[in-house]
């Protein structure tokens, strides 16, 4: 690929002096709350996006004020794990420097919005004191590694979960820029210390997402990731992982060359060293062969399709020096969070409340923010975020359970969680407006009210208890994985959504467009006859997604 064809972001990365760019001088510029175009691309590697309040653009322009810029900062939490102290620190930091709202993401971490430029350094310093960081949580690099969250899922959950840390370590960038810029650590004299054999000076062509699933629950939506690892457990022993490559949700409206894709299983690998080696080389192949001129075609899925799955597999084996084994059989039955109390094999208790769209707020319905904070203050538990944007209050001893339960009841968290409909429990939306620069339409601010109107339709046909996976994204990039929902909404313009149907319940099959650019009335008018038909003609235990497929609705 010739130099001239490199996309602008590629040039910025290479010229960035290991992701430093002009960030430091941009921070010192008092006149704007923004940073330069090239630094915008670089701060992503430090875990931040520059955003602005899109609702306020017009009014602020009239007031001769620039856009209301702020940053979104995302933490690196492999496997979604946080101690109670870290949770307290995060909520304190959120209150002091951001909107005060912790947003649990679909990648098992938290992000904070509304961080002003002048507050970034104090925020990162405070996180650092709590042993937390935001390194490489955005940008063209390995993102937060996600893993099936609930410890109850397997007696060897801990062992599998630890792989998220190991992979995280393996694929971290070597640059010290983060420490220099944000934590005022001394500048490196010997640049050799940050030589990076994996990322070199160009990093990956695009984001790179890794997930670990523990069957039979596919809560992590493993096939939506660039690199999917499916734990193979036999007799409570981890045998290794099936490896799948080339998953990814994002596409671009009007660009037929882009498409969502589920990862293809290419084999099985066992033994920690080999597992890590395989993962590492998949990343190096993507580094060397990914498209660096057109970012919309740069994800691993396009590299895999361009060069072929077989070629890719051979290249992995050539680079690792050992062959991949034949994939092992596995079965997924679900991809959900287990709400309520559960006990794992070690005798520890776990409670999962429902947190709508992952926003930890005090609302009329429930004082979730206060509840979680008060519970964290007991320091008798850990926090584990889920990929469905919930939190598992975890590792609670039998002795401490009554205390936690009492607090849950005091703030009516249990009452609230139990009141949530099956539909809502399985619903998910991305951030979208007003902060996401990519959004065409609302998502997390709108989905709850749309659900209010869909629920009565389901009740009308006796489907109120049906667990239908329903997801909404404000654009086709699919952060909330709307392409693998049974009912998916993908924003096309303000108030308009493509209605996608036919995805399966377990996340093994993509949905398809059923109707384009519907408004709310259109959505409800299209769904009602489908629910009626589903209630009348479904097979026993047939999910809505499978029904839609069988009836060739899409």
């Amino acid at each position, binding site marked *: 690929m010739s130099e001239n064809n490199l996309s602008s972001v590629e040039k910025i990365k290479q010229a960035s002096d290991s992701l430093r760019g002009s960030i430091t001088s941009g921070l010192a510029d*008092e*006149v704007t709350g923004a940073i330069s175009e090239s630094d915008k691309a670089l701060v992503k590697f430090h875990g931040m996006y520059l955003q602005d309040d899109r609702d306020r653009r017009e009014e602020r*322009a009239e*007031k*001769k*004020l*620039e856009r*209301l810029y702020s940053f979104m900062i995302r933490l690196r939490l492999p496997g979604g794990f946080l101690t109670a102290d870290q949770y307290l620190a995060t909520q304190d930091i959120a209150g002091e420097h951001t909107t005060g709202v912790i947003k649990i993401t679909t990648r098992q971490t938290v992000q904070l919005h509304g961080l*002003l430029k002048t507050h970034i350094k104090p925020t990162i310093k405070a996180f650092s004191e709590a042993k937390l960081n935001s390194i490489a949580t955005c940008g063209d690099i390995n993102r937060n590694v996600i893993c099936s969250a609930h410890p109850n899922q397997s007696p060897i959950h801990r062992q599998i979960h630890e792989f998220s840390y190991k992979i995280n370590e393996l694929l971290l960038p070597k640059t010290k820029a983060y420490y220099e810029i944000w934590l005022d650590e001394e500048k490196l004299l010997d640049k050799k210390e940050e030589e990076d054999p994996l990322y070199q000076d160009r990093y990956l062509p695009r984001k790179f997402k890794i997930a670990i699933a523990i069957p039979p629950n596919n809560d992590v939506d493993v096939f939506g990731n660039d690199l999917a690892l499916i734990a193979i457990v036999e007799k409570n022993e981890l045998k290794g992982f099936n490896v799948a490559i080339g998953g990814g949700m994002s596409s671009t409206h009007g660009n037929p060359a882009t498409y969502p894709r589920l990862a293809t299983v290419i084999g099985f690998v066992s033994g920690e060293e080999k597992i890590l080696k395989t993962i590492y080389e998949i990343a190096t192949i993507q580094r060397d062969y990914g498209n660096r001129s057109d970012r919309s075609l740069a994800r691993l899925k396009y590299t895999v399709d361009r060069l072929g799955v077989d070629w890719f597999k051979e290249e992995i084996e050539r680079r690792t020096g050992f062959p991949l084994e034949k994939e092992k059989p596995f079965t997924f039955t679900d991809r959900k969070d287990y709400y309520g109390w559960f006990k794992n094999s070690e005798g520890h208790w776990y409670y999962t409340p429902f947190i709508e769209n992952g926003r930890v707020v005090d609302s009329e319905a429930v004082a979730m923010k206060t509840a979680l904070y008060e519970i964290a203050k007991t320091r008798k538990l850990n926090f584990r975020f889920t990929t469905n944007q919930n939190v598992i209050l975890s590792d609670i001893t039998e002795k401490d359970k009554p205390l936690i339960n009492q607090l849950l009841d005091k703030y009516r968290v249990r009452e609230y969680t139990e009141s949530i409909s099956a539909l809502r429990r399985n619903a998910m939306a991305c951030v979208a407006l007003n902060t996401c620069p990519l959004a065409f339409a609302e998502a997390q601010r709108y989905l709850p009210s749309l659900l209010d109107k869909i629920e009565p339709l389901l009740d009308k046909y006796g489907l109120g208890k049906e667990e239908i996976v329903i997801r909404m994204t404000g654009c086709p990039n699919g952060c909330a994985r709307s392409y693998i929902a049974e009912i998916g909404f993908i924003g096309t313009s303000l108030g308009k959504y493509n209605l996608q149907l036919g995805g399966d319940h377990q996340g093994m099959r993509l949905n398809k467009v059923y109707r384009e650019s519907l408004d709310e009335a259109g959505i409800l008018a299209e769904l009602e006859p489908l629910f009626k038909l589903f209630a009348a003609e479904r097979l026993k235990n047939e999910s809505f997604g499978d029904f839609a497929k069988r009836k060739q609705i899409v």
Partner: protein
Amino acid sequence: MITPEKNRQIQELVASLGREELIWMKGFLEGVLAGSSGEPALAKAPQSSTKITIAYGTESGNSKKVASAFANRAKQEGIQTKVVSLDQYRLTDLPKEEYFLTVISTQGEGEPPASAKKFYDHIHQNGFKLPRLKYGVLALGDTSYPMFCKAGEDVDNQLQYLGGERLVDIQRCDVDYETDAETWFTSVLQKLGGATTVSLPLGRPVKKTTGKKIYQGTILTNINLNDRGSSKQTHHIEIAAEGVQYQAGDSIGIIPHNSELLVQAIIERTGIDPQQSFVHRDETCTAYELLHKKLNIAYLPERIITKYAAHTEREIEPFRSGLLELLIKHPVKDAAQFESFIQQLEPITPRLYSIASSLEKFDGEVHLTVGRDKFSVADEVQYGLCSDLLCALKRGDTIDFYVHHNDQFRLPQSDRDVIMIGPGTGIAPFRAFLAERESTGASGRNWLFFGDQHFTTDFLYQTEIQQWLDDGVLNKIDLAFSRDQSDKIYVQDKMKKCGKEFYEWIKNGATLYVCGAKRMSEDVEKTITDIIRESGEDADTFLDNLKGSGRYLKDVY
């Protein structure tokens, strides 16, 4: 000498005139007399032994202009003349003076201009006498203000008290001071035995011109620059006024009207006929118009309460009060008692607002930056009369205003650097300066210091400032948002931080401007002094020189 008929007419006329009008008339007659003598100017022999000092105290530059013109005329007459600003005047010279003329203006509530304060305070301290002194005071003022020419009067009285002898009587001048001033100086020269060149042309219109051209402006835009969540409310108001003439650095004066609700309440309470006509400053108007548009009824000064007590023959302890509140607590006997009191009320004081635009960029427009003045009286939030009125104006509304020229706040020649310090609404004239320099392509460098409470909500004119930075019109900016961090940061802290460069700019000839709140300007001045001292200079002398050469200018309120 005069016919009984004419005498009667004069007596009648005099009886109908107010004090201010009589003063004006005196000046007028002198002018007529001097001008109508018809005799060619007599060149008298130069009085080489006479030395006069003309000291001026100025805010807008008018007193300085007058003083300089006097000096030129005196020099032509061969009189040795020294012109000096009162803040540069050596107070120890005063007892040695023989002929001492002072031209002094009066500010808002009757106080002297800042540059005359030292002198004013000095002569008000007892303990010395000025037996040799022969003096004259020319007081500049504005009859729109209740304390018209008060500072000049104080100086005149005090110099006499200290033993000085009036060479001529004090002359009080309204905003159209030129004629009165010349007439007065003519009489000074006559006293000195000098010539009487009189430049007053014959056939000058007899009717008094106001001197202030009143423009009617139409509101084009009125937006609150502060974003939601700010504790401030600062309006950017664009006013179209055809043919309006001003220079960057000028202000406009606005006479705010009282609320009609308030007027109605007063009328109801006193029983005065709203249609009854009164003569107010040469104009006939109804009681309603007087209360609505002319008289200060919002907050009465103590002296008015005292007058009211005397008028109604009561004992009233002065308190902070509006007219309505006063009438409620201490009602008038009947409508007639109020009618006779109404003339004692003072006119509404015009409010001055620095113009935030340049005609070079916005022809036919005046832009203002108006902070809505918020204060509390007895725990109740109240808003300043004029700022409240301005902030409520809508597109298409009209407003009367006049231009208040300020020659003491002008840009230097185009290749000179300027440093502008203007936090809050103090930014206004600097927006005008930058627009002017942008439009004229001035090559001098521009450095702005701005501050307010919060970056996201209170950065007034942010996008325009960003554009000026991008275009290279603004070369340097330092910002201080006081409440964005735990310890408060103000513009002077930013100045301190780059003190060395600040000093270099001044050394290099930069003119220094400060606009905004008086308290801020005092802190800023202290910091400027510190910066100069740290650069190894004698700070006081250095600053005096800057002031003397017109390179340290203030527009503060």
